[in-house]
């Protein structure tokens, strides 16, 4: 490998979908400038470097590692610790790394429940032998190994120290470019900053003008059962929209697609628990004041965890379902 003086950058994914890698590729023409300015030393989706290439690098040799995805397995823990050690700056990229993301919805289920359903009970599975993935499978005197499946899904900063966060599911190319430019120019804000505007999405929403000054919610509508006015505030039309309590910076893309914000940019810096903040926003705007009327209105929100904590369950105060483990014969991982 030809050593260059360009800053080294690494990209890695944990429990994720690859959408964050696409978001980087979606820099489009700008990616040519990125490639010109930095040396990419690790990026599984696009480049053939292996884990041992990373291991062979001196500590702190990488200027910045952008890690997306939540943390569920021992291998993901190992990889992010390795990247932390090799990098001067570790950036949490996307909702899963920052907050747990969609994969953290699995925290509503116990580990054994998940494994039992996936490998035994799902209607598509035929598994008469009761086989489950094992940490070690013998093969001719050798062993084929699998990482441990931990008890819960965690955000990146629940495993290693994180320097900056780029939010979103996925982050926009504009935010990505701004972050990379700031990084290359050494113009980064204080450590721990989320690199996106620190105001609620409503401030950036093209429908802001039609948002009622005093929001009053009588009932919640489902988007396919309502003829939506494509110009009017979705909350004013009874559609649960996470905009009032979600950080902006997404360019209101879902709203431009005539659908509600589901909260992927997470909370602003003043909020500890994203879901609780949205819940409190809705609760204070609820028009009915009598128990019966309140129940009726809330019946329109059949899945509060999936609505309010769609992306942030791992980073919430409760974090996961807790309960006694019922079975012991699955892969045992050390509890986090």
């Amino acid at each position, binding site marked *: 490998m030809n050593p260059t003086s360009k800053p080294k950058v690494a990209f890695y994914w944990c*429990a994720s979908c690859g959408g964050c890698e696409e978001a980087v590729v979606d820099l489009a023409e700008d990616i040519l400038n990125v490639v010109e300015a930095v040396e990419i030393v690790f990026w599984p989706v696009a480049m053939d470097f292996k884990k041992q290439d990373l291991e062979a690098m001196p500590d702190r040799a990488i200027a910045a590692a952008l890690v997306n995805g939540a943390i*569920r397995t021992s291998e993901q823990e190992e990889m992010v610790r390795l990247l932390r050690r090799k990098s001067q700056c570790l950036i949490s990229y996307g909702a899963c790394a920052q907050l747990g993301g969609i994969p953290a919805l699995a925290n509503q289920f116990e580990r054994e429940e998940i494994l039992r359903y996936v490998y035994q009970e799902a209607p598509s599975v035929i598994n008469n032998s009761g086989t489950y993935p094992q940490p070690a499978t013998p093969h001719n005197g050798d062993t084929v190994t699998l990482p441990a499946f931990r008890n819960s899904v965690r955000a990146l900063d629940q495993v290693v120290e994180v320097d900056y966060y780029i939010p979103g599911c996925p982050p926009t190319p504009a935010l990505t470019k701004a972050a990379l430019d700031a990084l290359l120019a050494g113009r980064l804000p204080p450590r721990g900053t989320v690199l996106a505007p620190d105001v609620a999405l409503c401030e950036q929403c093209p429908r802001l003008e039609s948002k009622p000054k005093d929001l009053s919610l009588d009932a919640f509508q489902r988007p396919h059962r309502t003829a939506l006015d494509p110009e009017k505030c979705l909350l004013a039309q009874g559609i649960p929209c996470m905009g009032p309590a979600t950080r902006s910076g997404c360019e209101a*893309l879902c709203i431009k697609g005539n659908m509600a914000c589901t909260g992927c940019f997470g909370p602003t810096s003043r909020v500890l628990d994203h879901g609780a903040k949205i819940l409190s926003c809705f609760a204070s705007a609820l028009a009915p004041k009598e128990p019966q009327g309140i129940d009726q209105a809330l019946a329109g929100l059949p899945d509060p965890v999936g609505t309010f904590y769609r992306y942030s369950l791992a980073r919430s105060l409760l974090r996961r379902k807790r309960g006694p483990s019922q079975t012991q014969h699955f892969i045992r991982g050390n509890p986090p």
Partner: protein
Amino acid sequence: MSVATPILPMREASGASSAGLHRPRRVTIDPITRLEGHGKIEIFLDEKGNVERAFMQVPELRGFEVFSRGRPAEDMPQITSRICGVCPTAHHLASTKTLDDLYQVEPPPAARKIRELVYNTFMLEDHALHFFVLGGPDFVVGPDAPPQQRNIVGLIQKVGLDAGRKVIGMRRRLRDLIAYFGGKVVHPVLGLPGGVSKALSPQDLPGFQQLAQDSLEFALWTLQVFKQAVLANPEYVKLITAEAYTHKTCYMGMVDEQDKVNFYDGKLRVVDAGGREVCRFAARQYLDHIAEHVEPWSYVKFPYLKDRGWKGFVEGVDTSIYSVAPLARLNAATGMATPPGPGGLRGILHDPGGETGPPHTGQPLGANY
């Protein structure tokens, strides 16, 4: 099965013996690269250095089938798209169509056309991603190129900056079309039971019509690049068609009523390695035809043809393993529904260098083209 010449440089796993003249007994590829998803390959060699057994392992589980339960049905298109952010549009629309079925509603013609437009646009930009960014560098840059060049950057160096800009620019335009309707291109939000969330403004139509024309030209240009970079190189053709890289399974793809390829709607048709139809079914009947098998060495499950039962990792006409994706799609259909562009699309891989050839062969190296 004979042993393949590795096209990727293989590294010896730590701890494996390479003392003296002994060949390594074990080759580890970790992680697998230039595709969406997490994977590791463990290859065990016999005394002659031939492959004795190989394990393609997926080292993680997220559990969508568990945490999707108990949620409003209309949230599924946006939750299941997170299965894969490289092909979110596929999961989004599969889930949306499931909602049509659940609610027993047919989208109005305009909504159906918007969905098809979005989906076919996705098929084009996603295949361009595969060819130029993910799989293509193996051939365009070359299987023997050093790993730091065997990628999109090396590919642009090889084909030229102008060509690189052309690919990037076309993908951006195609993805902008998806975002126009879907809000976001990664994890679109347009799908609703019986329709879509956003309409097309008539003043935006001419731009999209121009894009369609440019896309056709782009596809034909890509085909030329493929022919020049891959098919014109006898070494590559030998590699692709080598017995070692031939993998005969059943093939599944979606077809219309004339058994032609359809990306958006139709029946799932399965043929065996000899081209004989095994089954044909509507997506809603999937549990009657597909089952999943569990192995102890991977978190991913192995779908197979339920009627045939799990027979292990065997190939041939009787196998219960089936392939999907581009090559399988062509094998499962009798042809494309629209006339081919100049040069012809079908038969490229079945008979490299010719227009016709034996159908129903499987060349995994070409499976995604």
